[in-house]
């Protein structure tokens, strides 16, 4: 595979990563999306979870929460509200976010919001269990 995928990860405060990689797996709102070079243009919201970035034999994991992914011929751009390398993530930080998500769920006033809150809570709990 000669082609490379141009990957950008930006948070509101700065650009966290810009690199050419082989594959990125992103936690889309409706399931995991494996993005390879020349993926069809796609726009999706993100669920909290680990982004897996593969470049050669290297694999990097970054935790993201909230935001968007945009795939265009120019590459993949993740607009993450929060992003953190996996090795900086610990049980305590996850627990904090689980608590936030639970509060969100309790605050949700419409079915739609409840569903979204429930989804992100489930994802976070999954992550918590995996850690």
């Amino acid at each position, binding site marked *: 595979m000669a082609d490379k995928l141009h990957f*950008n990860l930006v948070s*509101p405060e700065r650009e966290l990563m810009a690199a050419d990689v082989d594959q990125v797996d992103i936690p889309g709102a409706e399931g995991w999306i494996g993005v390879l070079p020349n993926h069809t243009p796609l726009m999706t919201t993100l669920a909290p979870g680990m982004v897996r970035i593969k470049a050669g034999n290297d694999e990097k994991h970054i935790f993201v929460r909230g*935001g968007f992914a945009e795939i265009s011929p120019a590459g993949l751009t993740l607009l993450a509200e929060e992003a953190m390398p996996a090795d900086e993530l610990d049980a305590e930080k996850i627990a904090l976010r689980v608590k936030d998500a639970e509060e969100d769920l309790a605050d949700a006033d419409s079915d739609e919001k409840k569903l979204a809150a429930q989804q992100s809570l489930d994802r976070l709990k999954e992550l918590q269990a995996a850690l």
Partner: protein
Amino acid sequence: MANLKDLKTRITSVKSTQKITKAKQMVAAAKLRRAEERATEARPYTQRMEAVLANLAASAEGNPNAPRLLAGTGKDETHLLIVATADKGLCGGFNSSIVRLAREHIVKLQGEGKKVKIITVGRKGDDQLKRLYESLIVWKANFLETKQIGFANAHEIAEKVLAMFKDEEFDVATLFYGKFQNVVMQVPTPQQIIPAVAPQGVETPELKGAVYDYEPDEAEILRALLPRYVAVQIFRALLENVASEQAASMTAMDNATRNAGEMIDKLNLKYNRARQAQITTELIEIIAGAEAL
């Protein structure tokens, strides 16, 4: 002569003021560099977001089901003014010029019979506005305890604004802040954030004939994106405000330091003259005394 001592005290006092302004100027210069960096670092996110939004907004245009954050409430009665200023003074006309712009706006809106609500961000703007419009201020925020403004701060303000919008407390929200042009130019700027103005002239990526797939769907994404766009705009305004404040402060303190220098020179001249005059008087007295013998 008492006058001599007075002059000396004044010179010392002006000198210590000069030391303060000089120090503040250097602090501002250092902070300005950091603030500018942060504003630059935040740019990619904003740009990407604008590109995505421009793309989506174009397709939502004219759609009766377009989210209210984009289409507005259909009314134009109550205006919310978010006035972002600095928390500290010593930055020349920076705060006053933002407040003046906001005030002109308020007078104009009130003249048209519209209702006005104010959110103040930053202590200085709050101080100035509450003298005139105490009853209109619905909420205030400041960053006195925040060392560095982060996205979380902007998010908090955005949440408040969005909650108010949801409760139909206003129809149009405008943000006032000091746009950072360059070190000598900071332009107080009004920016309408609700209903969202779709950014113009942003580059959208070339799709080579393909169309975007949307997950979940376009409307859903737009609904999720718009509140974030409000937060991003506030965040950017806050970052620019910090940079502008430091730039204004640097210029103001530079002027103050120079003024103090001129004043010291003048006072020194006066002091020397007075001292000379005293010596001459003393000499005359001695000579007159010697002649009398």
